[in-house]
């Protein structure tokens, strides 16, 4: 089992009331699975993958990644896990504005053990995602689609076993969207576990399993 959530909940205090962003969700994602999480805006999809990735602490429940209860780890080990085991793709431009494409791709490697952060490897990954010609461009010089591709290359630099993608094709044109989805499918075939948040049912059909979130709760799991 690559990811397991056990009765996980996340509650926020807001305006005197309590909002249950994630409501006692239990789920299992197998090694090498491609899972799409769909649902309306505010249904808790982003919070769910953030909990899986160790970006936000659940109010209750357990989160196991490759058998490790990640919220029992100290900050050093949790940071190491995020760096080495998980690659994140966000729904917005997530590149560091003062670094060019190569250095953005190399960034996670500087926090991890091993020697994966060479410029040659960064160039190789940029070629994989189709933006090698933008290697020395800064984020402000890239289009939205190009930024998303660089971010995917960055997510791959430490050869993570899991990719957590939050609306990775949001705001992109259909052609770029299709190319990025093809890239995810190729990675999944290579054995990478992918959990992708999307509000598009059409994109979700590219995944092996669709999970639907509604008001913080998981509605159903279905094999496509």
């Amino acid at each position, binding site marked *: 089992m690559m990811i397991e959530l056990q009765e996980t909940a996340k509650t926020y205090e807001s305006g005197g009331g309590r909002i249950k962003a994630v409501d006692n969700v239990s789920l299992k994602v197998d090694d090498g699975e491609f899972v799409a999480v769909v649902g309306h805006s505010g249904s808790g999809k*982003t919070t769910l993958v953030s909990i899986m*990735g160790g*970006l936000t602490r659940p109010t209750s429940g357990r989160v196991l990644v490759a058998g490790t209860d990640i919220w029992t780890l100290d900050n050093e080990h949790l*940071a190491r896990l*995020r760096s080495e085991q998980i690659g994140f793709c966000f729904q*917005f431009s*997530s590149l*560091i504005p003062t670094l060019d494409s190569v250095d953005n791709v190399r*960034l996670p490697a500087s926090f991890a053990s091993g020697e994966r952060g060479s410029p040659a490897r960064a160039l190789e990954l940029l070629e994989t995602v189709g933006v090698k010609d933008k290697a020395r461009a800064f984020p402000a010089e890239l289009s939205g689609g190009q930024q998303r591709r660089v971010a995917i290359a960055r997510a791959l630099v430490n050869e993570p076993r899991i990719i957590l993608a939050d609306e990775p094709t949001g705001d992109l044109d259909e052609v770029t969207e299709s190319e990025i989805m093809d890239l995810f499918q190729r990675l999944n075939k290579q054995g990478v576990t992918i959990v992708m948040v999307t509000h598009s049912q059409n994109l979700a059909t590219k995944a092996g399993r669709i999970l639907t979130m509604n008001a913080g709760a998981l509605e159903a799991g279905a094999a496509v």
Partner: protein
Amino acid sequence: MVGINPKTDFTVGPWLKQNLNHTLGDNEIILGANAHIFLGKSESHPGDVEYFYGKPFTVVGILDPTGIGLDDSGFVTLSSVYDMAKGSEKTAIRKLEVNQGDISALMVGVDPNASRAEVAKNIEVLVPGVAVVSSKELMSSSISRQLESLTPGILLIGIGFWVISVLLIGALFSMIVNERRRELGLLQAVGATRKFIFRLVMLEAMELTAIGGIVGLALGSLVILLLKGPIASSMGIAYLWPGAWFIVLFAVGYLVMAVVTGIIAALYPAIVASRLEPYQAIRTGE
């Protein structure tokens, strides 16, 4: 031109001891910083030979500017003055009327704890025909006393400015951290630890305050250099630069203080930055 007894003089004596490896010789002269003007020259240099009443004197040193009358003077030995006066009958157009043993003034060094007024009164009583005059030294001492009484106030104002600068730099770094929330959250998402985020903010603060310190030091030095003339002439007191080591130590101390200010000011914003939860930082930084 001032004739001094090199063995007992204490006015230019300390300078002589520090800058001239030998006692002032009979045919040697030390010039004040502006004495060249009275010699009709644009500048004077050690080694130049100047003639007074037909007697040659070799310039052995130029005094640092002081802002007082010393700048316009030349210092020779008392015996040179007598020789010059004696020889002036033959070598000069007009004879110099100074006889062997004549003196115009006797400088008296007074113990710091003694009352100058009382010493002056006693001299006048004990040595008939001698008039004791208040020198500029006395005036500068009163200015010095005034400055001493102002010092605590200046110190308080300085501390006040320092506290304000700590608060301002702290507020500035809080704003920087707030504006860069998403970036800091993203760094954590790709593997940065809290310690790394803390160090990042602190190093940036140290770097910025060090640069600010260097710029401030350069600007402050420039202002002092440009204004030292007007300050000296307006106050009528000696305006001397401290020694090189003091200046170096002051500059280093000033820079260390600037960096320490940055460290103290950025401490709270750095702690806040390191405690940001990545997900919240990324969301609220959008």
